[in-house]
């Protein structure tokens, strides 16, 4: 009956016998959630700094680049395809895993390119990141989308790792933990962007 009697560990195995009151969550998934919390805090800091800047003095008034609308749609769609890849994994449908993972990755890249064009649009409109013609509120847009973009790059790396596993047929209904974590992270990045976008829509 007692778990700890079953599998007496030797000195060189680290196993997790004898667990009683633990969470049922995989430690690595849990760690991912904690990582997400820390990213959230960073963006909370950045956006509250923006509010402070925006409400004091004369903020720079600017238009939200049209491109942000497009990239927002792109990233939402990529979240959907990510979810489809995950459900395909649960149903053991390897063909669909590969297909939807590929689409998600491509959409991720398109998103990044779109963000770049959005920056170009901002420059056209006279909203600069730095220099004598810049103002903090304008610079903040670059910081939001830039720092988010860096996280998107990390998400893309994660997607590619998962994609590679998928093509090695190492993802199936038995082994979903990697793709599940990948999906969690990607959805988070999606939600984070939508938050930033709506935030900018409300305060510009």
């Amino acid at each position, binding site marked *: 009956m007692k778990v700890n009697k079953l599998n007496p560990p030797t000195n060189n195995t680290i196993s997790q016998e*004898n667990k009683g009151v633990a969470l049922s969550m*995989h*430690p690595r998934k849990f760690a991912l959630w904690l990582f997400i919390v820390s990213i959230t805090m960073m963006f909370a*800091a950045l956006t509250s700094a923006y509010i402070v800047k925006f409400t004091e003095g004369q903020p720079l008034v600017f238009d939200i680049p049209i491109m942000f609308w497009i990239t927002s749609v792109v990233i939402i769609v990529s979240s959907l395809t990510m979810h489809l890849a995950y459900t395909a994994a649960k149903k053991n449908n390897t063909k669909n895993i590969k297909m939807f993972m590929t689409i998600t990755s491509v959409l991720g890249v398109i998103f990044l390119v779109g963000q770049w064009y959005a920056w170009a649009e901002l420059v056209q409109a006279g909203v600069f990141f730095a220099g004598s013609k810049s103002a*903090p509120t304008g610079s903040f847009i670059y910081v939001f989308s830039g720092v988010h973009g860096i996280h998107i790059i990390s998400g893309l790396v994660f997607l590619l790792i998962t994609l590679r596993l998928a093509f090695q047929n190492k993802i199936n209904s038995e082994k979903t933990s990697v793709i599940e974590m990948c999906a969690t992270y990607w959805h988070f990045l999606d939600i984070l962007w939508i938050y930033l976008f709506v935030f900018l829509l409300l305060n510009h």
Partner: protein
Amino acid sequence: MELHNHGQSAVAEAHTHDHHHDEHEHHEDGFIRKYIFSEDHKTIAKQFLILGLMWAFMGGAMSVIFRLQLGFPDFNLEWLRPILGTWINETGKLEQEKYLALVTMHGTIMVFFVLTAGLSGTFSNFLIPLQVGARDMASGFMNMLSFWFFFLASVVMFTSLFLETGPASGGWVIYPPLSALPEAVPGSGAGMTYWLISMALFIVSSLLGGINYITTVINMRTKGLSFARLPLTIWAFFLTAIIGLLSFPVLFAAALLLIFDRSMGTSFFLSDIYIGGKALHHQGGSAILFQHLFWFLGHPEVYIVLLPALGITSEIIATNARKPIFGYRAMVGSMIGIGVLSFIVWAHHMFVTGMNPFLGTIFMLLTLIIAVPSAVKAFNYITTLWKGNIIFTPAMLFSIGLVSLFISGGVTGIVLGNNALDIQLHDTYFVVAHFHLVMGSASFFGMMAGVYHWFPKMFGRMMDDKLGYVHFWLTFIGVYLVFFPMHYIGIAGFPRRYYSFSTFDFGKSYADLNMFISAAAIITFSAQALFAFNFVYSIFRGRLAPLNPWDSNTLEWTTPRVPGHGNWPGAIPTVHRWPYDYSKPDADKDGFTDFIPQHIPFSQTPNSNFEHENDLIAKQEGKKNSGDNEHKHH
């Protein structure tokens, strides 16, 4: 079965994605894997400790140098030239800019490298797996990375000391514009850049560590170890890690914006600045914004520094008073309270930035509320000691010392927390006295207490008690002699971070007291040599430690004298009770002395069980019959 594989793969998978469920072979650890790139939490803890202690001596030595300047402004420092080089000018005096550099480095090193990495890094790493009954951290690999990021941060910070323009000099709080404009003071150039790189690495290190600590405490407790039975050390490390996880990213954000201001020409924190009569292009930013972001980390950070020390103290005081900790739940509750409150009081560092007085009053109220949980903790320590069967080990002395320092430093916090009083006291030596007692000294005492207490488990040998006593008394008297007089100097209006007071008339009035403080500081610092000797000597030559030298209840003392990889050679013990069954009535009838370790089931101690504990046995018996759910939460 699911459960079993998780832990294994957590460690194994961290290495490579291709060997998912392979056994983690560690048979012949080479020297490098064992002592350098080790994934064993105990080794990593020792690495944190040794690097942290090295920094502590560096930081301490710096303070001696600037105390020499403050106490003996006319003293010729020519003899320091071999170490300090051009930091000593032609007349044998410390360069003025380098004075500021030393103060800045001293603060940064002590707050982050010694009392965050050295304290949390050491004891969270060492004690979490041992006290929760896990074979290692959730991810040994991340844990190893955490140390090496700290190491890199250390290398970068250390290198910055040798820059021609000197290291960062704008204070450990790196307020802009000094930190944002490379041309502001010599240290604002390359030195500041190094500081920012180093701290970015440091933040990564503490996040990696913290994520691991939280995951391990939540996921890897042994059977029977509910949260209500966690040793207070673990509670403290756990809450510290949560606070760190929530606040360090904010510092990261601030540092990021600062980097943009410095090197890319944005103006987040800058506006209307003239250098040498020439206007800079930066417009529209605000330096106060930086202070908000900084102190949103900065205030929680002081608790990141203090809470582990308080946790260590709880454990040591209960053990050596041979009494259950008084008010276990109140202790946990007050730590949670402190943790929550620490996020909503940051503006008490900014009362004189021209903030709306009404807002200041709100922050004053919130600040003063922190005194309540703090006082609860202080009273609980004292009540635990009250009528205890106190055994004065060096660790116990340092713990009691911590309580004393925590109280005397906390009281001045209440003074500073009043925004009307703070107008007078802000940025004076009164503040320096406050936080050196409550944070610096108290946490340092906690660290020392921890080292003396867990040294036997770390190195399998005992430290020398007598040297420990001398070390304690010299340090204890020393820090009071150093920091107590600073209150008067502060009330008299002496600002902090001044190179010299001798050019002002008012400054002369306290020249003798400043001299006294400096002398005390030098003696206190020298006394640490006793510790260094004791530490190093005992690692190699100390008396072999018994298995449970302090007759303690927690799980780490059920491991072999020097626990190997995986901590327990056999099965992990199961936990049956809280860790504070000291001097339980009638324990002798059950064959125990004045302590009953956590892994002893209640069924073995029928005479000493309390009523509700007997009920617990009955309930467990009942559950056993109805399946093996017995180890669910109660």
